[in-house]
């Protein structure tokens, strides 16, 4: 944790809203990323990320400065997403309330890259959907947040052995889902009809 971050946390602990705003600015990406991978769409992810930060703000007094702030924050986020998935009552956001679409600049990826990226995203989403909420959280923290098993255990309030067991089971499920998706892939089905000359 950087010195600046420590200062922001200290000020936030004393009730400084501006300091917490700086923490929101700093941690918005990992929190949003976790929500997106857990919930599968940007609208729900935005909503869950905002709510997680509000929860963190209201419960900042419970934060132990001896623990990493990121772990504490991701723990709140993961549990919020798990609850949202269990309730299956995610609030909807009107399209007008969403920020306007950003016009891509010249450094933006080509349509082909966008297509592949969309395909990958869809594949990732479908694979993660095969997992239970808690297992999904463990996998997302492991692969997108590079968390160790100990950190995952702290974040999800589980024992390290429980995390190992969940990761093992999740990888197994994912590999089997991958094989199923691969067999049902439309790209694979098209191959026999492709022209051999090309």
């Amino acid at each position, binding site marked *: 944790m950087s010195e600046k971050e420590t200062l922001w946390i200290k000020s936030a602990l004393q009730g400084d809203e501006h300091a917490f705003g700086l923490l929101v600015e700093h941690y918005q990406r990992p929190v*949003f*990323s976790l929500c*997106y*991978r857990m919930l599968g769409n940007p609208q729900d992810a935005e909503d869950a990320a905002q709510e997680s930060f509000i929860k963190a*703000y209201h419960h900042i007094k419970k934060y132990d400065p001896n623990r990493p702030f990121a772990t504490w924050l991701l723990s709140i986020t993961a549990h919020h997403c798990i609850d949202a998935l269990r309730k299956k009552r995610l609030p909807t956001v009107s399209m007008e309330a969403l*920020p306007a679409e*950003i016009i891509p600049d010249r450094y933006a990826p080509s349509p082909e890259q966008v297509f592949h990226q969309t395909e990958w995203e869809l594949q990732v989403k479908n694979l993660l959907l095969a997992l239970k909420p808690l297992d999904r959280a463990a996998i997302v923290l492991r692969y*997108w947040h590079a968390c160790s098993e100990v950190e995952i255990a702290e974040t999800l309030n589980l024992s390290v052995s429980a995390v190992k067991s969940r990761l093992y089971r999740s990888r197994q499920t994912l*590999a089997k889902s991958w094989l199923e998706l691969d067999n049902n892939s439309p790209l694979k089905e098209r191959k026999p009809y492709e022209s051999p000359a090309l």
Partner: protein
Amino acid sequence: MSHQPYERFLFTKEALNQEQQNKLNHHLQECDNCLTLAEALANLEELFSSSPTPQPAPGFTQRWQSRLLESDQKRQNRNLWLMTFGLFALAGAILLFLFFLHLPFINMAYELSQLIARISLITAEVRSSLNIIRSITSNLPFIIPIIILLTPSTFLAITAVLFAWFRAVFKLYSPIQERGNMS
């Protein structure tokens, strides 16, 4: 053939010693099922690592600040409702408690309240009477001089009329000689 130990080697992702690694490699050469799973896992991990980290739309912090404001207002309203409801619940609970456990006290309190009601009613009546008296007495200064002036003059006038009438009657019934002598 048991796949269990090899699947465990594959999916736990723990560091294997040389002997375990050799066993796994040997098994993968023989078992297509485990080889397919190993390849699937490798592809999966490659997909995960190549998948970019999603980012929120610009202005996330500003949206959070406005949402926090809304959330605080909602919390305040909720707390207010809870406090009001809590007070009513507490009052109800106290009343029920007193009603069931201290009925004599309730009767005494009822009688006391009745007494207070009566006293306040009497006080109100006395006060209204005093107001009437005060309103009359406040008008008296205008009436008194009129009464003072009218009463003696009326009395004198009546007395004078009576005196004149008695004299007239006396003269009428007196003897003629007396009237002749007199004349």
